[in-house]
């Protein structure tokens, strides 16, 4: 692997979109720094789903993920005066989210059975809510196995694969969030994908 990444070849590049989005983020951040809760609400509305998805991917438990996602935004609100725009707002936000997840997992070692229950609960809820959009892909089974397989990864491996899947972040952005090199991001992604593929061999 050498040379600069070829963004033009990327299947799902979102750089242009980010460039458009960023200035308004900065304006909202500046308002938040003066204590404007309304501006923070706008930022939260924009990013809450993706932050929640990342946290759900790492924690694998909906209630905990919701709690940690809300705590992430609360901490971001408290610390927003320290944000100087050295990175993009969402990179900064994801860094808080991932750190929150890692701290949470250190505090609370969830037993595998509980994770299993959480997946079952999620699947049950999906069944209750009618049409399953992933039936064509044997959705329930794949999803169940995927979540279980994700749970076997370390938090660092989960974080890279989830950040890449949810937001399509570049390796550079992921490395900034996790505080590691781009090479480490690449090798962790390769390892995580390989593990997930092994676990889901019959479904992919």
């Amino acid at each position: 692997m050498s040379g600069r990444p070829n963004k033009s070849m990327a299947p799902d590049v979102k750089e242009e979109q980010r460039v458009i989005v960023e200035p308004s983020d900065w304006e909202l951040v500046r308002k938040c720094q003066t204590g404007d809760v309304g501006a923070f609400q706008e930022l939260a509305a924009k990013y809450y789903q993706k932050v929640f998805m990342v946290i759900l991917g790492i924690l694998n438990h909906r209630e905990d993920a919701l709690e940690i996602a809300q705590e992430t935004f609360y901490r971001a609100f408290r610390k927003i005066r320290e944000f100087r725009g050295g990175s993009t707002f969402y990179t900064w936000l994801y860094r808080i989210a991932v750190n929150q997840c890692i701290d949470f997992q250190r505090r609370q070692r969830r037993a595998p059975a509980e994770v299993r229950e959480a997946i079952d609960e999620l699947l049950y809820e999906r069944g209750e809510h009618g049409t399953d959009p992933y039936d064509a892909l044997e959705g329930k089974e794949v999803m169940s196995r995927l979540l279980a397989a994700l749970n076997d990864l370390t938090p660092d491996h989960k974080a890279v694969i989830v950040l890449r899947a949810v937001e399509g972040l570049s390796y550079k952005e992921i490395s900034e969030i996790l505080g590691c090199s781009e090479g480490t991001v690449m090798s962790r992604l390769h390892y995580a994908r390989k593990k997930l593929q092994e676990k889901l061999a019959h479904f992919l």
Partner: protein
Amino acid sequence: MTMDCESVRRTLGAWLDGEVSEKESREIRAHVEACPSCRAERSRLERLQFVLRAALEEGASKVTFESFWHGIERRISQGRVRHREFWDWLRPVILPRRLAWVIPVTVVCVLAVLFAEQFFFGLGWGPRSNVAAVESIDGHGFNLALLRESETKTTVIWLFEDEEEDEPAPEAASTDASL
């Protein structure tokens, strides 16, 4: 086909992520188009990415912003209450109501000490300057005058009678005296 299957598979994920150089990208693309096995691997990786994203999106779709924001807003207001409670607790500790007189009394005491230096300049604090002071006592015709000068620490005492009124020194000194 310049790359072998093993090296292509090692970089296939990075290629799909758009994280390889243009030259590598061309080589991988050429290999994948020609190799059914690597093409299948590419499909599996894309499918994995799709299923993972779909699973997480599905999990997140049931969370409405209203309920999510409510949890953040509750934390913000609780944080503000905690902050206010902390100050409400700290204020009486650093300034209890029954000791409210302490601050004005302290200010008065400090000012008094500073002013005292003007009168008792031998105490050794306050600004250093050469000050001369004259004190006199009228003793029914036998008078006593005292001149003190701070820089040279000189004290001059005059004893004189009323008849000597025309003596200029004590009179002149007494015009600047601080008694």
